[in-house]
């Protein structure tokens, strides 16, 4: 366990005109820790994720990231090129819709290999071998390596997107509803796969989801958002078993029992 966090977020706010996207969000994330951000549509969780992954600039507040060399960098003061480099190497971003995170008209192998080339690998044989290895880790048969993701099912596309993100060995992965839009049986397999990868690789992750079961399975810590604000945060099992904020109690009591 490291004694320094990986990401420090302080009083982050994003306004759209006078409308609140997210307001005054503060938290630290440590290496190997999975934080779930839950809340219903419009609660600001996706705005928060977009700000953290620097696809959106906040209206106020700061976020600092500890680089591989141990230096702290203020995310919103980095140049566009530096942020893009971070995104290609040290970070991953898993979109809800795999089509947003994949190149649909190049092969599965190239989708994975492209990220490796972005970090400077030029050896074709090695790139292909790594791609094969990663496809097998996300349970895609080797003989599909030359197929385009267009020909893949939704669950396979999502697994491919995960492989594409993890191949460069990122330290921090952002996930936006990673199991949204998938069949329940496909969801279970994907969650189980994600859980294994996150543990084995010691990844830190921020997972945005409206599904409390996903939060329970993947995260150690949870933030509940409503109307752009964090209404409750804490250990995931504590928040779910002993919800204290009125809104969290409503969310937890709305879970369907099977």
């Amino acid at each position: 366990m490291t004694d320094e966090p990986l990401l420090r977020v302080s009083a982050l706010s994003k306004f759209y005109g006078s409308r609140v996207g997210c307001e005054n969000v503060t938290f630290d994330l440590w290496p190997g820790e999975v934080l779930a951000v839950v809340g219903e549509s419009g609660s600001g969780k996706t705005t928060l994720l977009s700000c953290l992954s620097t696809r959106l600039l906040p209206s106020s507040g700061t976020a600092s990231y500890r680089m591989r060399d141990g230096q702290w960098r203020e995310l919103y003061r980095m140049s566009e090129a530096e942020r893009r480099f971070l995104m290609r190497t040290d970070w991953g971003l898993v979109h809800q819709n795999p089509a947003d995170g994949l190149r649909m008209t190049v092969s599965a192998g190239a989708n994975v290999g492209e990220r490796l080339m972005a970090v400077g690998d030029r050896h074709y044989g090695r790139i292909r071998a790594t791609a094969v290895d990663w496809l097998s880790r996300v349970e895609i048969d080797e003989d599909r390596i030359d197929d385009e993701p267009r020909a893949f099912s939704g669950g396979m596309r999502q697994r491919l997107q995960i492989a594409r993100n993890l191949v460069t060995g990122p330290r921090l992965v952002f996930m936006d509803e990673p199991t949204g839009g998938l069949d329940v049986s496909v969801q279970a397999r994907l969650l189980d796969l994600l859980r294994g990868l996150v543990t084995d690789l010691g990844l830190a992750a921020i997972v945005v989801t409206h599904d409390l079961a996903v939060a329970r399975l993947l995260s150690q810590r949870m933030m509940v958002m409503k109307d752009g604000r964090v209404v409750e945060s804490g250990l995931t099992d504590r928040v779910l078993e002993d919800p204290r904020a009125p809104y969290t109690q409503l969310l937890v009591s709305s879970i369907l029992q099977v």
Partner: protein
Amino acid sequence: MATPLVVSDVAKTFTMHLRDGVTLPVVAGVSFSIRAGECAVLGGPSGAGKSSILKMLYGNYAVDEGQIIVQHGGGLIDLASASPRTVLSVRRHTIGYVSQFLRTVPRVSALDVVAEPLVERGEDREAAREKARALLAQLNLPEKLWALPPATFSGGEQQRVNIARGFITEHPILLLDEPTASLDARNRDVVVELIAAKKAAGVALLGIFHDLDVRDAVADRVIDVTAFAAGKIAA
């Protein structure tokens, strides 16, 4: 003897915001300590707050008042006010917990469910599996089940997986929430033996046992939870 766990003046009230903010006081003035090598049992009827106390000690429930002092990593920490990260570290290294029901994860084998707490503490996976095999054998779980995910197991089989998972580590404090509830006589005896071995190893145990035979066999002391009834203090 060392005192790894000291609970003082702990209180817990549930506020039901969906029911117009009605409050349900559960316990108040909870004070006790557990010594190393001792097994204390929480006694009292259903609804007295026994499980709530265990859940506060493990961080599943927030603590409204009071302190829970734990010897952790060479120092003392107050679990009642600890950060989530500290609570996770305490769970990994200091306090183990055997819950009433196993929370299963799809596709993970019984053997790996049991070995996982050791792997989390940095032990080699194969060595951890070896210990898991020994414990599952001791608990008479048929070997053909070891490679299967426990979701489809019977209640008693799941409970034994759960017990093995809780007993595999060398946590200095172990919380037990009715570990023998769905076990037959032979396996209850195994659990009694496991508890005796933990006591001999200097572990501080706190448990809930409705089975009187098991309770009499393992308890050094019964802590009467009705003494902490929240109504009493309020009245």
